[in-house]
């Protein structure tokens, strides 16, 4: 069997699994259902690992049903597996397996009469994510995008007993679907211009015409759907609302890989469709997306620091990291893409582990509120608490975690572009990690002053429904083993020799439009390749002194932030009091209005979506 024949299987296997669970899930006893779900998730992971291995740094393509194009034209649907795409699918499959194992005894009471629902939805989610990562067809990408979206809405509102998950799921669903329809409008415009739906074919045909308002509108509209999924500011308002209320295993998937797939999709669409002549100039994309990335990273970090609801805090930290990933991709060169890919992999491990540990807190104490849990989880200090702290350090990018290596590589690529960008990386990752460390110290050791309930506009994390109702029992083993393994995986990403070099090759392939077009069996694009060589000076695939030092600096800063929050209120002296007053005034003037913006209202969400589209349209029209 040819390696490229495995591409459709990567989507078909989880789809089949979902169908099996939907059909016979109710007949299976609980244990059999758990074992079958794990085996199925493992099968897809193995399949994708084989695909990654056999692709061996090349781009695989499969024209589904043998509908190949003739003379560069055709209506067939193509699956394209380049190392970055297969890697994203592999990451999704790995997290799906982790979640399946984690959720073994997690949902003590499946909805009565439908015990197969959860595994069926999870496998359907996997099919959507793998399909989205591997498709080379724009309309197909929309369908997979909506598939993973619809499943994610359903999973977010899985606990239909509580009002808050339903509210989060509704906002999530309406905003993301609206954005997806904007994408579809853009795809329609591209089809009207080129008569093609394949990404490579559209890219080739755009060269026949100059860049005009239609191309700009199509680019912005297609990008809107992807960037809403990626939660770029100002499209991010749905994310904390959905992540704070979704069941913990679902949060692991949403934050770990689904949001990142939005960034991946935006990068893929830019390079394959719009990077050539007749597309969007690289300078415009670079300028707009780097700016948006910086704003996203800073806003996410500031909001993350303010939260007391632990899941919501982790959600804002995801937004902050998405900003960093956006910067990495928007450098529009191979080192940026390679570093970001490594960063995404490391971040997925660390963030999923942190969510999983928060799930343990919810399971044991029925609360995810930093203030009410103050000092209550001392008995879990050496298991959950230690891992939580390590997760915080990983989030800061402390060597030798994978996040550290990814951050160092992305920072180096960014620093070669704009000298002040690494400062954004260090500051935001330190702030988000500082929030995690502060939470860990408060909950697991009761360190520092007793936190007091401050400003009004906030989401509290007590009164959460515990997801498992068996008070007083010990923490189930899978809920401790899975986060441990996830952290180990994050460590492995940073330590495995050769992974960095492999991803550097993958990044070069990802940014090489001619290679993509050739792999799809189409004639080479006219005009010079835009991006492949820019910034190639800053190549390097492993740890450097500079990277280690910046990572360590983030870690030290994070610890300093956390210590200030914990013990700052206890200090006395005029200077300290004056600094405290200054901080309070800054928080009142700057942060409170920012928090009030996050009103959680559906109408505000949609208004921000429209504002964002208008802003992007204006920016790209001015810069085209």
């Amino acid at each position, binding site marked *: 069997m040819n390696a490229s024949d495995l591409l459709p299987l990567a989507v078909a296997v989880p789809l089949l699994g979902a169908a099996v669970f939907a059909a016979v899930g109710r007949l299976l006893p609980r244990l059999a259902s758990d074992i079958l779900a794990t085996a199925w998730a493992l099968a897809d992971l193995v399949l994708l690992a084989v695909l990654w291995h056999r692709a061996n740094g090349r781009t695989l393509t499969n024209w589904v049903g043998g509908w190949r194009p003739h003379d560069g034209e055709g209506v067939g649907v193509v699956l394209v597996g380049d190392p970055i795409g297969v890697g994203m699918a592999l990451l999704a499959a790995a997290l799906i397996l982790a979640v399946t194992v984690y959720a073994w005894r997690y949902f003590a009471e499946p909805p009565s009469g439908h015990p197969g629902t959860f595994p069926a939805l999870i496998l359907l989610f996997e099919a959507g994510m793998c399909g989205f990562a591997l498709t080379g067809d724009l309309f197909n990408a929309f369908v997979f995008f909506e598939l993973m979206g619809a499943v994610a809405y359903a999973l977010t509102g899985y606990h*239909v007993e509580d009002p808050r998950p339903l509210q989060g799921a509704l906002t999530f669903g*309406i905003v993301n679907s*609206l954005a997806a329809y904007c994408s579809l409008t853009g795809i329609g415009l591209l*089809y009207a211009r080129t008569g093609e739906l394949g990404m490579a074919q559209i890219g080739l045909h755009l060269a026949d015409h100059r860049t005009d308002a239609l191309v700009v509108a199509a680019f912005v509209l297609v990008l809107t759907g992807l960037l809403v999924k990626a939660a770029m500011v100002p499209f991010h308002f749905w994310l904390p609302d959905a992540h704070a209320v979704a069941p913990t295993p679902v949060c692991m998937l949403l934050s770990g890989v689904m949001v990142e797939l939005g960034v991946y999709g935006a990068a893929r669409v830019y390079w394959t469709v719009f990077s050539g002549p007749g597309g969007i100039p690289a300078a415009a994309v670079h300028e707009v997306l780097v700016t948006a990335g910086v704003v996203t990273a800073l806003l996410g970090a500031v909001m993350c620091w303010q939260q007391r609801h632990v899941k919501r805090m982790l959600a804002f930290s995801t937004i902050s990291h998405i900003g960093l990933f956006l910067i990495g991709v928007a450098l529009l060169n191979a080192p940026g893409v390679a570093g970001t890919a490594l960063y995404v992999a490391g971040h997925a491990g660390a963030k999923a582990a942190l969510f999983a540990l928060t799930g343990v807190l919810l399971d044991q104490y029925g609360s995810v509120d930093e203030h009410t849990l103050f000092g209550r989880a001392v008995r879990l200090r050496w298991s959950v608490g230690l891992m939580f702290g390590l997760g915080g350090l990983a989030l800061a990018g402390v060597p030798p975690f994978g996040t550290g290596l990814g951050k160092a590589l992305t920072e180096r690529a960014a620093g070669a572009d704009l000298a002040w960008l690494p400062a954004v990386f260090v500051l935001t990752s330190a702030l988000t990690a500082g929030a995690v460390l502060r939470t860990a110290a408060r909950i697991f050791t009761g360190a520092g002053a007793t936190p007091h309930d401050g400003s009004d506009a*906030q989401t509290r994390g007590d009164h959460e429904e515990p997801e498992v109702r068996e008070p007083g029992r010990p923490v189930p083993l899978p809920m401790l083993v899975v986060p441990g393994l996830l952290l180990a995986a994050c460590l492995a990403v940073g330590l495995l020799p050769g992974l960095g070099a492999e991803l550097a090759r993958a990044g070069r392939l990802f940014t090489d439009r001619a290679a993509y077009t050739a792999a799809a069996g189409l004639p080479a694009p006219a005009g010079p390749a835009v991006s492949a060589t820019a910034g190639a000076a800053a190549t390097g695939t492993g740890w450097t002194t500079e990277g280690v030092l910046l990572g360590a600096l983030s870690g030290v800063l994070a610890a300093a932030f956390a210590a200030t929050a914990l013990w700052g209120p206890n200090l006395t002296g005029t200077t300290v009091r004056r600094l405290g007053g200054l901080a309070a005034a800054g928080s009142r003037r700057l942060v409170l209005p920012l*928090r*009030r913006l996050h009103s959680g209202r559906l*109408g505000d969400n*949609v208004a921000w979506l429209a504002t964002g589209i208008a802003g992007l349209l204006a920016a790209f029209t001015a810069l085209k």
Partner: protein
Amino acid sequence: MHVLPYLVSGWILLVGMYGLATSRNLIHAVGCLAVAQSSTYVLLLSIGFRRGGTAPVFSDVPTGSVVVDPVVQALALTDVVVGATVTALLLSLVIQLHKRHSTIDPDQLNGLRG
């Protein structure tokens, strides 16, 4: 090619978004989402329109005759399926919300902010 269908499509999208932004009722909001989506049907079908063309079913007409574009019709059909799924899912969430929370006014759902 006539520009009117494109203007209509854009208008429907904007009306749907306006309705969503100002909605005071979640069922109305889901309806507005469906309105916004129907703009994509109008857009897709007007892209494939050929003056004087017939349905692209070649068992009825000679193979050389002018037909409208079948690709966009397939896209619109897929779009309808996606839309039906999402609308049904969202409406079921609204029903659950009404059962548990006895309100469908989005402004009264303020459990998540800041």
